[in-house]
């Protein structure tokens, strides 16, 4: 008999609760009109930042590309006359990116960083392939003071393969048997 009353109560109580909720204000954020401010460390669109002097931070080490689980980052490394490495082209395919942020963790120079800009949807998939000029921003991102080359120094200006026991650079396309 105690169970009987318990069951009756258990049947009627939900009605009371849902009726109460009916008159509460919904928690929905109505997106195009109202926008949520994402937290500062939100992981959305990726950018390439600059060091305090305004130079590109990216040294085209390919670590981000290797860390990327969906292989959406690709680049071509190049070298200045003074031995400073940079990316000749740098491409992120945002239609494949899953915004996991592993690339930013892999980056030794803090070049690639996530931003809170999440509104990058596009009807045309090819518009989601961002080139280097789309990715570069005029800012240091989350750490404006960091400058990788200040710690490491700029690499040797000597041409590759000129050292005493050094082989010349390998052309992978000529390695075919």
């Amino acid at each position, binding site marked *: 008999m105690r169970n009987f009353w318990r069951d009756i109560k258990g*049947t009627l109580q*939900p*009605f009371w*609760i*849902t*009726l109460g*909720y*009916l008159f*509460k*204000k*919904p*928690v*929905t954020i*109505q997106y195009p009109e109202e926008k949520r401010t994402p937290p500062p460390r939100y992981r959305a669109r990726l950018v390439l930042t600059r060091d305090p002097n305004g130079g590109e931070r990216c040294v085209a080490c390919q670590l981000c590309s290797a860390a990327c689980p969906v292989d959406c980052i690709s680049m071509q490394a190049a070298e200045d006359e003074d031995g400073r490495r940079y990316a000749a082209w740098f491409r992120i395919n945002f239609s494949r990116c899953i915004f996991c942020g592993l690339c930013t963790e892999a980056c030794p120079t803090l070049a690639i960083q996530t931003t809170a800009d999440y509104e990058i949807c596009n009807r045309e998939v090819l518009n989601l392939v961002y080139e280097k000029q789309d990715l570069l921003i005029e800012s240091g991102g989350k750490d404006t003071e960091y400058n990788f080359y200040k710690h490491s120094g700029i690499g040797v200006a000597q041409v590759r393969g000129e050292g005493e026991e050094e082989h010349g650079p390998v052309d992978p396309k000529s390695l075919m048997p």
Partner: protein
Amino acid sequence: MNEMLISLALILVKLGLIFGVVLTMAAYLVLAERKILGRMQLRYGPNRIGPGGMIEPMCDVIKLITKEDFIPDRADKWVFLFAPGLTALTALLSFAVVPFAPPLTLFGREIPMVVCDLNIGLLYIFGLSSLAVYGVVLGGWASNSKYSLLGAMRGLAQLLSYELALGLALVPVVMSAKSFSLTEIVMAQSTWPNILQHPLAFIIFMISVTAESKRTPFDMPEAENEIVAGFHTEYSGMRLGLFFVGEYSNLIVIGAMTTVFFLGGWHGPFLPPVVWFIMKVLFVAFIFIWMRGSMPRPRYDQLMHFGWKVLIPLALLNVVVSGAIRIALN
């Protein structure tokens, strides 16, 4: 002959009016249900198209009509094609005997505010609700899919079992009105509604009518997290839409039935009778939506157990007791 033509014209006018009102109401009940359920879950529900989402039902219809009408391979094509129509038809035909206002006198002739005042109106509604099983069963069987078949079999057993309790719950109502005619049942409630006279019958009626309508606490035939979508798994486009037309017209039928049998029909102070009737119907529909927002789905064997071992004995007892009281009072 002239007399006959006038009656026929009146019937057609009333038929058109009721169909128009019912179909519009069914479309907007879908919207109302989605909005109320949304608010119960602290959401807004559909509100994008039109002010407050008012044009949403039209968009739904356009979407359903323009979608592909898919017929599965090795389905029984003809049965598959007409089963949804059967569901919608049985629900819509029930309105023929529902009286929504007292007889109106126009141009010196009395017009009953009901399409066809059958003197077995209650049995007519009952017959149609028992035929509604065929839409579910044939649709599920003809789809040639295991989920559809499971849904159809569940629906069949459930509808058949709860029809008994439904019928028994209405026996005291018929006893106090001394008639099967819905108009006379409403007339008999002019002093106080049946819900006060037969509260137990009302509760049994509400529970079994929920099971009859396959709505959420008892939506085993289409339990989407067990058997995909039950009997209408394989349906698409407007044929799926017809199932929903049937379901939501059925919701209005249930509202009208509850109003007529228990809530005193069109009787009510101050307001005109039709307004009272529609208000009561919408109130019952709200209760059903509310129930959908509040109750979980029981297991299938619990449903059968409850129907056969609790509701039917209770309804039988109710019939005996209210009959005995009736005899004792006379």
